[in-house]
């Protein structure tokens, strides 16, 4: 394994997004903070408790998830896609870097961005509501697992996309509806049928609830279910991405 090559790619990926912090860290932080102000502070005061929690702390795990998932996805997808468009992907393909090293390098960089945004979002939440961390281990596992899964999914999107329109397809038409319908701002328990049953097919629901379990100590689903789903998604996404990179799908002629 080319350990130094992997380390270089990982460090390059982290430095790349840190070069434009306004775009990669500050901008998502402002969006999420606005959610707190609008949904949590303004509307939340008039809402009753959700699953035994006041509304403001209830939405904190979901908003952390939202910021983290979006930014992890956007980092790996935009980075590799831009390399494809600008032609610098040649440097990677010619270098002695295998599919595993390329995967880990991009995913590692994207996870760092996702986790930074997630933790800063948490920091913003602390301005409005006291810290709640009932199960630190579960919280950490769901944070890292979510960042990993969305980083890998971003990489798949970048490998597949050939046009800017295509790279915007996933965040706009897949991730945005699934996250907003994933129980970030409400509990799926509150939904009437058939929406309750429909929501059960949205994997993001289990991730948000898993994080909610870790931070607030209660969730609609058993945390192991969310953990198993996250692990299965991580494994599947990793296998698919590895195979695509090893084949050079849409990367090599």
């Amino acid at each position, binding site marked *: 394994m*080319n*350990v*130094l*090559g992997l*380390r*270089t*790619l990982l*460090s*390059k990926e982290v*430095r*790349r997004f840190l*070069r*434009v912090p306004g775009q990669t860290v500050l901008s998502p932080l402002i969006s999420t903070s606005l959610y707190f102000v609008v949904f949590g502070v303004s509307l939340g005061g008039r809402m009753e408790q959700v699953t035994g929690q006041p509304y403001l702390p209830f939405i904190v795990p979901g908003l952390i998830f939202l910021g983290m998932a979006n930014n992890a996805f956007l980092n790996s997808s935009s980075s590799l896609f831009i*390399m494809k468009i*600008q*032609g*610098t992907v*040649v*440097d*990677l*393909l*010619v*270098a*002695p*870097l*295998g599919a595993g090293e390329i995967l880990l390098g991009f995913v590692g960089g994207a996870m760092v961005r996702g986790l930074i945004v997630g933790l800063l979002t948490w920091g913003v939440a602390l301005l409005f509501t006291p810290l709640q961390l009932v199960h630190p281990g579960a919280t950490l596992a769901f944070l890292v697992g979510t960042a990993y899964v969305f980083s890998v999914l971003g990489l798949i999107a970048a490998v597949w996309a050939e046009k800017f329109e295509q790279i915007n397809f996933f965040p706009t038409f897949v991730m945005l509806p699934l996250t907003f319908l994933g129980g970030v701002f409400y509990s799926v328990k509150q939904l009437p049928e058939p929406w309750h049953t429909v929501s059960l097919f949205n994997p993001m629901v289990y991730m948000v609830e898993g994080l909610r379990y870790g931070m607030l100590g209660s969730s609609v689903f058993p945390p192991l279910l969310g953990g198993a789903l996250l692990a299965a998604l991580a494994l599947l996404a990793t296998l698919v991405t590895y195979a695509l990179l090893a084949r*050079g799908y849409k990367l*090599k*002629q």
Partner: protein
Amino acid sequence: MGYTAPAPVATPVLQVEKLVKRYRDVVALDGVSLEIGAGEIFALLGPNGAGKTTLIGAVCGLVKKTSGRICLFGTDLDSDALGPRFQVGLVPQEVNFDPFFTVTESLRIQLGYYGRLPDEVRIAEVLEALDLTAKADAQTRALSGGMKRRLLIAKALVHRPRLVFLDEPTAGVDVELRRDLWAYVRKLRAEGTTVVLTTHYLEEAEELADRVGIINEGRLLLVEDKRALLQRMGKKRLVVSFDRPVARLPEACTGGSVLSEDRTGLVYTERPGHPRAAEVLHALYAEGLPVQEVETRASKLEDVLIEVLHGRAGAP
């Protein structure tokens, strides 16, 4: 046209056997076999779309071959695709740059990709060699086109590869860079680096190459030592102008001579089995013809390439 594979080279760093690359209906490489020896400069020549870049891409991991075998430094890429690539550098045809980093940072990243720790001495050396020292801390997006091309070359060389592919390295660059690069390529060869060069500037190949390969429509038409090739296929031309029209030419000139319409100019092309240019000139003087000016021209690689591409010549 018949093609005989060239004799094997002494210590091959690259061996390509019956390499085929097919894109749906298009055959980009049609059974190419080639050996390139350690420390040589090999020029791969051919028209646009001949298969030069595809061949380089297949060796460097940018193109997936359809069939055939590629060995780098004795290792079959089918058994180890990555190991040999630590020793390879590529200057791609298309200019690319990462706008997030400076020139020096780009070189450090390149070193890291090739499993090397940051080496500021080596980076300074490469920057100096490519006249980029003043731009060491410049953002790559701020570089001019020529400077970006220099950076590409620096990136391909910074990890001290044993085999370097230069795919049209001087396309669209000024004469100064071209001359600098030629000097640097010679230095690389002196240090034992093998260089494979594709170029549209045949003057470049003529200046640098030890051996030449001519490829067209995915087929390698010829591989030969440059000097031997020029000697074998190159023709010497004698161009003579006369003070006044000449009535007739000496016998030595018949066959291979073209007299101008006004009969004051003669072009004689040497051919096997015919008198040499010097003998023709001697005969002109011996006949007392009014020779005013004499010029001899040796044919260049460009003439040879055209001959080969038009099927008028083949391998020895």
